[in-house]
């Protein structure tokens, strides 16, 4: 018993058995593939179908009403296999082409003969979507089981991220539907013999499957398509959101860049001059930075858009290559500028100079910043202000000067200043040092120093730093204003910075100390000495705590809580 299918060829109805139908439809399909000329193809195919109908109707009669394999074999023998026809057809086509185009006629025929492997999802040996089975065909792996196991392990370790990867592959990779697809999936050449082999294999598998109940398969398939639809919808939703977010970021960058170039650029330009050798370099690297950020965003948007439009992620070759090369170029520019800027900081130099100062009238020397009124006089117009850097007409100010205290070897105060800067080389670094500007003004019992690092105009930012070293004699005190960084290297012990700025610092017994400051050191000492031990036994918990003065043991048993205390009287 065989199942039959109703078909019509050339306007005539025929009954054909299933096996013969498969072979015939594949034969027709392979003929279609051989006639490359689109215009002529449909006409040729209909002529061929008429011929088939004629032959079949001649072969059939009252006793034999079903077209079978023998008839199909006969018609294929009569009309010829596609390969046999192709040889003749392409020769005539080539002759036609040769009149206009002498070259480039062989390529097409040879290309069509070459079999190339293509990535398809395999619906026959699938568990879920046939993605892994497809990949196994593609990479020539015979046993898909191990790959599946590896996938499950990966799924576990990646917290399910690979499920998303799988879904994306499910969406993007087409299913092998026709026999030609299946052959391409397996990397076999597509011709009539291989198709016939494939058809027979499929049929034998199908008859095997008939013996099993089909319902479960149906249900799984339906569930599969349902999940696929949901996943597709979800991914589209995600794609839309990603698209919108990217759009907003891109738009935001563009708007702020445009706004900045109109409003902020003239002022900001002064800052860029501190780092970049020229303003053009800054503009170039700003654009490069925009490209480095913008191109991936733009590309992401583009991919999302193609996915939203066609349910497939389409990589347009030209766009991808352009975007990638633009991105690499921009990255290279940024890299180049980063290196050339970093080069400016290669060498460090410092220069120490003794400053002659008057001895204060009293025992206490007050170190204060140079009067802010005078500062604003000097810097008549503050051009820009950004963070800690201040740009003025005459130069720029940044950071804090450091005051370092030390014990004087004689009975006098001494002042030293150390200027340091970086540069391309030692010479350049020294040049930068010479552009640092320091001032100090002395009063009866006060010393006014520039509390910020000041650099003349035309200097670049090169890590400039100013350290004032003040030598304090025995028995004298200083009070350092909080505007300065205070270096506590030479202090007797650690003090709190806030305490130091509000109290006198004096030299006693050849050591820098702060009598009224809280003793930070001692607090930490007691903390370090304290020791708490917890012992958790089967039926008791013991907590032992000890410090310099006291030892406390607490034991919590099942019935009794014991507290012991020993004072250390040493």
């Amino acid at each position, binding site marked *: 018993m065989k199942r039959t299918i109703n078909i019509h*060829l050339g306007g005539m109805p025929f009954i054909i058995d299933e096996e013969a139908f498969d072979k015939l439809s594949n034969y027709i399909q392979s003929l279609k593939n051989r006639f490359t000329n689109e*215009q002529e193809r449909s006409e040729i195919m209909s*002529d061929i179908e008429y011929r088939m109908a004629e032959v079949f*109707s*001649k072969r059939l009669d009252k006793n034999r009403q079903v077209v079978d394999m023998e008839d199909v074999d006969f018609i294929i023998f009569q009309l*010829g296999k596609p390969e*046999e026809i192709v040889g003749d057809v392409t*020769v*005539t086509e080539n002759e036609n082409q040769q009149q206009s185009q002498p070259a480039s006629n062989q390529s097409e025929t040879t290309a069509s003969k070459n079999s190339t492997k293509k990535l398809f999802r395999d619906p026959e040996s699938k568990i879920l979507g046939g993605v892994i089975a497809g990949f196994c065909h593609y990479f020539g792996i015979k046993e898909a089981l191990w790959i599946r196991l590896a996938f499950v392990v990966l799924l576990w370790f990646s917290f399910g991220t690979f499920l998303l990867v799988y879904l994306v592959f499910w969406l993007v990779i087409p299913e092998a539907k026709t026999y030609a697809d299946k052959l391409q999936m397996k990397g076999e050449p597509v011709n009539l013999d291989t198709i016939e082999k494939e058809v027979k294999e499929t049929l034998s598998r199908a008859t095997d499957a008939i013996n099993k109940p089909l319902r479960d398969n149906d249900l799984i398939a339906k569930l599969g398509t349902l999940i696929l639809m949901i996943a597709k919808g979800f991914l589209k939703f995600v794609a839309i959101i990603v698209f919108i977010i990217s759009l907003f970021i891109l738009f935001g960058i563009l708007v702020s860049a445009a706004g900045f170039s109109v409003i902020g650029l003239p002022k900001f330009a002064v800052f860029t001059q501190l780092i970049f050798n020229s303003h053009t370099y800054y503009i170039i690297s700003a654009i490069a930075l925009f490209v480095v950020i913008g191109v991936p965003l733009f590309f992401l948007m583009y991919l999302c858009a193609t996915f939203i439009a066609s349910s497939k992620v389409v990589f347009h070759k030209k766009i991808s290559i352009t975007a990638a090369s633009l991105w690499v170029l921009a990255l290279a520019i940024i890299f180049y500028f980063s290196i050339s800027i970093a080069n400016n900081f290669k060498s460090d130099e410092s220069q120490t100079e003794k400053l002659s100062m008057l001895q204060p009238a009293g025992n206490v020397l007050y170190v204060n910043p140079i009067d802010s009124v005078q500062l604003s006089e000097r810097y008549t117009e503050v051009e820009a202000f950004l963070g800690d850097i201040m740009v003025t007409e005459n130069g720029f100010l940044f950071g804090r000067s450091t005051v370092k205290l030390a014990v004087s070897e004689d009975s006098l105060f001494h002042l030293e200043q150390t200027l340091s800067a970086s540069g391309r080389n030692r010479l350049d670094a020294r040049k930068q040092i010479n552009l640092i500007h320091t001032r100090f003004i002395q009063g009866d019992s006060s010393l006014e120093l520039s509390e910020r690092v000041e650099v003349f105009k035309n200097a670049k930012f090169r890590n400039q730093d100013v350290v004032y070293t003040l030598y304090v004699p025995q028995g004298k005190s200083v009070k350092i204003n909080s505007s300065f960084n205070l270096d506590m290297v030479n202090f007797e012990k650690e003090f709190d910075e806030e305490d130091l700025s509000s109290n006198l610092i004096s030299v006693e017994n050849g050591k820098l100390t702060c009598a009224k400051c809280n003793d930070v050191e001692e607090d930490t000492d007691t903390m370090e000495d304290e020791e708490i031990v917890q012992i958790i036994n089967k039926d008791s918990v013991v907590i032992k705590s000890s410090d310099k003065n006291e030892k406390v043991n607490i034991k919590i048993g099942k019935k009794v809580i014991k507290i012991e205390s020993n004072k250390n009287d040493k």
Partner: protein
Amino acid sequence: MDIENSKAQMRKGVLEFCILSVLSGGEKYPSDIIDELKEAQLLIVEGTLYPLLTRLKNEGLLTYRWVESSSGPPRKYFTLTDSGKNFLSELEKAYNQLSEAVKKILNKTL
């Protein structure tokens, strides 16, 4: 040199000429043409004929009309057009010249 290929090329060259010649005898439908060509052992597979007929028709050398058939599907009956007849006579001249030339050469060598 592939002998089959050479044969096919030779056959190919005269196949169009032969189809036109067959049709010069009057209106015919593909099956008739196939039979005649097969008889002359010019055609090995029928599939080759259909693309040729379509091409000749598209070039205006042939024309056809549908004719009902009692036993099967309707048939396309092909005839030569005027330009087809001219084309055929040109081909005939060329073929005769060629055939003479080939004969001469063959006779000399034999």
